[in-house]
């Protein structure tokens, strides 16, 4: 139950809260969109993508890890913060190898939609063209690390919903990679299944099914007709097994 007494304001608008809410929990429930990638309402905070950066009490904080305290005044939709989010998004692009024009998640991808939403026109930073191996060993699923933004959502979904612990993030710094937890390091040697919740939460195109590819036509994709800031917190995986209702 929300409690107005616990409420906060986001860009001057009152947002009710529940005890234990983070800023993004409260915003999400109230339909206020704060850009995010690693946050998912089912899987708790992670704080890695930094896209939900807001300003509270004169400090930049991640909305997904910052508790909503009564009377808190949060700035989100300001030019200054949008500029920061744009740079963060551009860094995510140059950290991978993203080729949106041919990606089957184009139009469904949160990273792409966020970039459009922030008005991203170029990479700004020099591309790093990292070498990241594709793991196509699994019969049903393909892991394309070129597109992985290391949001940890598949890790959390596999741990907390599927109970399989299929994934983890291995390596350090710029060498960090999404790794299947198997002796061979290959997806085929895990218990991963296309029915798993973890197979449906990727916000980009890093985890792809090996069937029905490109089945969703242009015009029927989530972000084809409406920008992500208007769609808000509805996600491409909402209709997936175990997904939250739109």
């Amino acid at each position, binding site marked *: 139950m929300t409690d107005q007494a616990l409420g906060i304001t986001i860009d001057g608008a009152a947002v009710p809260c529940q005890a234990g809410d983070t800023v993004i929990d409260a915003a999400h429930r109230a339909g206020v969109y704060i850009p995010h990638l690693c946050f998912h309402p089912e899987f708790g905070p992670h704080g890695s993508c930094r896209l939900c950066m807001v300003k509270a009490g004169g400090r930049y904080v991640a909305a997904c890890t910052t508790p909503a305290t009564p009377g808190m005044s949060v700035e989100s939709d300001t030019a200054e913060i949008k500029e920061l989010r744009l740079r963060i998004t551009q860094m995510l692009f140059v950290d991978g190898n993203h080729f949106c024009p*041919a990606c089957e998640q184009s139009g469904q991808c949160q990273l792409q939609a966020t970039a459009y939403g922030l008005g991203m026109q170029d990479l700004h930073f020099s591309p790093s063209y990292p070498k990241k191996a594709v793991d196509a060993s699994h019969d049903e699923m*393909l892991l394309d690390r070129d597109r992985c933004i290391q949001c940890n959502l598949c890790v959390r979904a596999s741990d907390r919903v599927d109970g399989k612990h299929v994934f983890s993030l291995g390596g350090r710094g710029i060498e960090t990679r999404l790794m299947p937890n198997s002796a061979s390091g290959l997806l085929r040697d895990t218990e991963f299944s296309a029915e798993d919740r973890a197979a449906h939460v990727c916000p980009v195109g890093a985890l792809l099914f090996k069937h029905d*590819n*490109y089945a*969703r*036509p242009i015009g029927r994709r989530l972000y084809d007709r409406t920008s992500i800031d208007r769609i808000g917190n509805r996600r491409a995986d909402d209709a997936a097994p175990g997904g939250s209702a739109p």
Partner: protein
Amino acid sequence: MSTTNLETAVGNQPLKRVVIDPVTRVEGHGKVTLLLDEDNRVQQARLHIVEFRGFEKFIQGRPYWEVPIVVQRLCGICPVSHQLAAGKAIDQIVGAQLSPAATKLRRLLHWGQVLQSHALHFFHLASPDLLFGFDSEVQKRNIFGVIAEHPTVALEGVQIRRYGQEIIKAISGKKIHGVVVMPGGMNKAMKPEEVKTLAAGIGEIVGFCVKAVALAKRLYQEHRNRHEAFGRIESPFLGLIGPDGELELYDGGIRVKEADGSRFVDQYPCNDYMHLVREQVKNWSYMKFPYLIDKGPEYGWYRVGPLARLNNCDRITTPLAEAERVGFLAAHQGLPQGALAYHWARMIEALHCAEAIREMLGDPDLMSDDLVRIGERHFEGIGVIEAPRGTLFHHYEVNDEGLVTRANLIVSTTSNNQAMNESIRRVAIDRLNGANLTPELLNEIEVAIRAYDPCLSCATHAVGRMPLVVELEAADGTRVGAISRDEAGTIAIG
């Protein structure tokens, strides 16, 4: 003088080097180099495609289902053809026998592609030369000049192209680089309202295409001797053919006719193309030189595209285009061979596409949901299609994880590589030999290239008055003189 002898200059006499860079009113970046002796006689002429595509390499390691969508980015004019050729190859990998609905949607999509591309090629890029003359003022030798002086011609050309693009958009979601081909089929049917709208407009487009054929024929016939001889070479012709010898753009067997009209092969299976055609590499071009294996590289080069298709087929299945085909052949003794005959043939094909679209739009299968059929997995797929500029080969191998391990593409431009080189050499011999070089004369080299192809290397975008510098150098590299054209079209000599 033989044109082939001009591939490489012989002897060590001092030669002047003339470069046309870039070739204009074509998409992509091409360059022509000429070597002239002291009397301005051409000793060497080469067309270079100066971009490296590399798609065959960087598609390796990607999942097979991405291929049609990735490789269509080869081109901004005929991406549909690449998407479909790759799609046909991937169908084989998933063991698909397409449903009637998917096949009809693909055929319709491709007719839209060929229609819009042919309109762009003829009206936007080539017609300024044909309407105003090769040596006309450079300021008006572009589509804007056509709009100013021949507004009806220009408008109808634009309308034909627009209609073809509307077909593409209705089926694939976008006019350029849509996404519709899936392994084993298509991802959506057409909506009844889309079919209704397109059907309402096709009658007018057929009419425009009838006029376009008449225009292409008139322009060719008005300067018959010159146009027939311009860039004329003789070669075999290669293309797909339907089961009854009919003109076929989407699927069929391969027919090759000799220059004298006799058949070299007929109904040759596309999946055996590697036993029919091989590619030669030359150290001066990024583009390979395909040839018929049994004839060898020297005599085995061939031509593809509208002229090849019309010379190859026994008939066209649509009545208006068939009547024009009969007239086209009757106007020539033997097979038409001149480079500019391509334009006439091109407009006959545009008319065929419009007629075929009109017929197909009455088929209820276009709205069927029976769109995808998957069979037993294979590890190799070959898709061959007739792209607007000619026969297009896509060949892929995949591993048991579904990743591409090998790719080979022979695009239409590549098949016409030797032919374009031969035609510019013909023009160089006939028109440039011993003459003082002028921009107008150099345009004739470009006219020959445009007859074959408006998009040399796919997906760079340069249309119209590109800056151009032609430099004359002595054999020792000393600059003798130059002609330049800036972005405003101003010519400077000196």
